[in-house]
């Protein structure tokens, strides 16, 4: 101690545990990259372009709104990238790119910055964006194109390149004439709803079906989710509760009439459920924080998904189920405050 040292002052605790919010967000992006790669493999450059467009749109919107409200830009925390990726993955691969940009803008503008930015959004922003385009472009968002077409890496799906504010060309003709390496046809949920055909659960699990950009492979989704759980950056209780709620609700109907209602396995592995359970419902900000609340929230989302899928007019239900769950979160929390040490209930 040659000279008088300088003393720094803080308050306790003086040690902190990694990770920071930015690290968590970065790791969620890493976890989504394999899904993005698989989507590109399945659907080619159209899917890749769609993901890039939504991400850029989300980031630009966030930056713009930060500037407008004279705040330090928050795009560096990577949460806008996540919103963009999540959003693209719930859209059909041939979704027109300009509509993707609109979806990205709405997701951030209506879903996030309007409420005050990160930490304050009541709903999952990506789902707000998707809900908006579902209402605005009902045809495009339910137009599915086959996976694994031969020329997918050199040729866009025709609908992708629709000019801004123009409806895309009909892809039915294109779908009929493209050569396909793998499989084709409507999505498993549409088959179930309109033709009473139940796709094999194994195919669903492995992702060998048509569907939204990033939602088809349950096994890949589970692996990516497990990575985040392992790094303690994803609360496993939420996906577990959603899947639990779905299985229980689906099982009730399946027991009533196995011919009319699909099996719980089908419900869990079809459509966007697995993706939504792992990456959407687990959005930290819009889900409850109390242990019992997390379970109630997950079961509610699972139950609503099954009900909407079986009785609603739409094929994809999990988006609305989660938005309802988000809306119910404050109520759920207020009824599920934990038991406090030293206090009797």
């Amino acid at each position, binding site marked *: *101690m*040659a*000279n*008088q*040292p*300088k*003393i*720094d*002052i*803080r*308050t*306790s*605790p*003086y*040690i*902190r*545990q990694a*990770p*920071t*919010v930015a*690290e*968590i967000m970065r790791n969620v992006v890493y976890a989504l990259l394999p899904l993005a790669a698989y989507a590109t493999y399945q659907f080619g450059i159209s899917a890749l372009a769609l993901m890039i467009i939504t991400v850029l749109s989300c980031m630009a919107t966030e930056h713009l709104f930060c500037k407008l409200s004279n705040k330090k830009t928050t795009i560096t*925390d990577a949460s806008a990238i996540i919103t963009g990726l999540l959003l693209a993955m719930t859209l059909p691969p041939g979704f027109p790119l300009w509509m993707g940009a609109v979806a990205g803008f709405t997701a951030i503008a209506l879903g996030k910055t309007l409420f*005050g*930015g*990160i*930490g*304050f959004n009541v709903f999952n922003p990506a789902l707000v964006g998707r809900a908006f385009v579902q209402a605005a472009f009902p045809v495009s968002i339910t137009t599915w194109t086959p996976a694994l077409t031969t020329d997918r890496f050199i040729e866009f799906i025709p609908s992708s390149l629709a000019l801004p504010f123009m409806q895309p060309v009909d892809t039915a003709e294109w779908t009929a004439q493209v050569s396909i390496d793998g499989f084709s046809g409507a999505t498993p949920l549409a088959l179930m709803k309109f033709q009473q055909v139940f796709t094999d659960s194994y195919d669903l699990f492995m992702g060998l079906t048509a569907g939204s950009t990033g939602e088809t492979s349950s096994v890949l989704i589970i692996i990516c989710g497990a990575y985040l759980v392992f790094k303690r950056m994803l*609360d496993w209780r939420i996906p577990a509760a959603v899947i639990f709620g779905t299985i229980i609700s689906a099982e009730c109907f399946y027991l009533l009439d196995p011919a009319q209602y699909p099996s719980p396995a089908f419900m869990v592995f079809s459509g966007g459920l697995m993706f939504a359970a792992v990456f959407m419902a687990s959005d*930290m*900000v819009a*889900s*409850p*924080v*109390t*242990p019992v609340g*997390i379970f109630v929230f997950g079961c509610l989302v699972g139950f609503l998904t099954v009900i909407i899928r079986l009785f609603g007019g739409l094929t994809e239900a999990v988006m609305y189920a989660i938005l309802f769950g988000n809306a119910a979160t404050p109520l759920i*929390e207020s009824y599920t*405050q*934990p*038991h*406090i*040490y*030293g*206090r*009797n209930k």
Partner: protein
Amino acid sequence: MNLLNLFGKKTFPRGIHPEGFKEETHDHQARRLPFPAQIILPLSQNIGKPAIPIVHMGQHVRRGELIARADGFMSVPLHASVSGTIKKIDLVPSARGDKEQAIIIQTSLSSTQTHHHGDYQDFEKMSPQALVQAVQDTGMVGLGGASFPTHVKMKIPDDCTIDTIIINGCECEPFLTTDHRIMLEQISFMLRGIRIAMKAVDAPRAIIGVEDNKLNVLEAIRPHLPADDSITIEAVVTKYPQGAEKMLVYSLLGKEIPSGKLPSSIGVAIFNVATLAAIGELLPQRQGLIERIITITGDNLNKPGNYMVPLGTPLSHILKHAEFTGNEAELILGGPMMGMPASFLDTPVKKGTGAVLVLDKRATKRDDVLPCIKCSQCLQVCPINLNPSELGMLATKRKYDVMEEQYHLNDCFECGCCSYVCPSNIPLVQHFRIAKTLNRERHRMEVA
């Protein structure tokens, strides 16, 4: 009953597992430092009233001599920790920031610094009341950091009977190893202190709780325990804040201390090992508390370790002898989770100071506070099971009354687990301290 205990592990739910950093000092036997040239003894070294000085400027005092008497029951006396001359009785800056009265003694260089002590007293023949008085006379406070007068703890309300005393040897704060050393080096003092405490509160049994990262303590103590099992030692899981009163009672006995009540309401009294070891040493000789073991550890120190220092030793003296080589540091009195920051180098070691931790700020510094993303990590670690996330949001809205009335703010004992895990770096504990202080002020205004 505690479900986890069924699997043979004694612990409490939630909590955190910070890195221990104890290897650097836990094998380091407590050694003495040279006496400092001057010591500073603040009159307030305890929760409750400060002591009243009975010496005057220029008076010569012997090491161990009474220099300030207790001001009523909620107060403890103060003894000279060195032989020397009273330089002045004056206001000095305190670690908290405000100024406080202190007695400053100039160490006499020619003195041999031998102890001053009274006549031997046999605690076995003393009544509980006499023991409480004798403990107060030693000037003892909780050496674990709380600085609550020990004799007040030993005075059990008339409507309570104590069936168990718990001796807290958890030392769950990272870096700290003083209790570890005491449990290895002062076993006979500690056991005598336990028997004194058992007699004072009339308890038939005592349990020593030690975290299972100190298994050598269990081996060292077991052979000395009485055959009738009146004193036992148990390992509890190494987890922060295992050493908190509420947590340790739950881990060992599976009982919860009711909110706002004392442990005596469920028949338990809790003491820190260092406190009882000191009582076991001092009480029979009618000595006062004049020195303690502290851990000096952290970054940029050539000689970290455990040292026996006189109370009132300034930090600069300690840093010099621990050979601090840096030129910028955070100085923390206590552990990294709940310790107090020291703001100047003349800050003295007090009765409740268990450690001086020197941290290089760069290693732990985080600046940006982000909004709460409701990741629920804080709920998953809060040992009391509060909702720190919601409390934090209410604090930023300044709804301090809602925090207290609906979210049980006053059950928080500021262990810091929530701040430790918060990825948004929200200073939750600081929010709660401010809220509690403002609430207390508001209640005072309402009464007045």
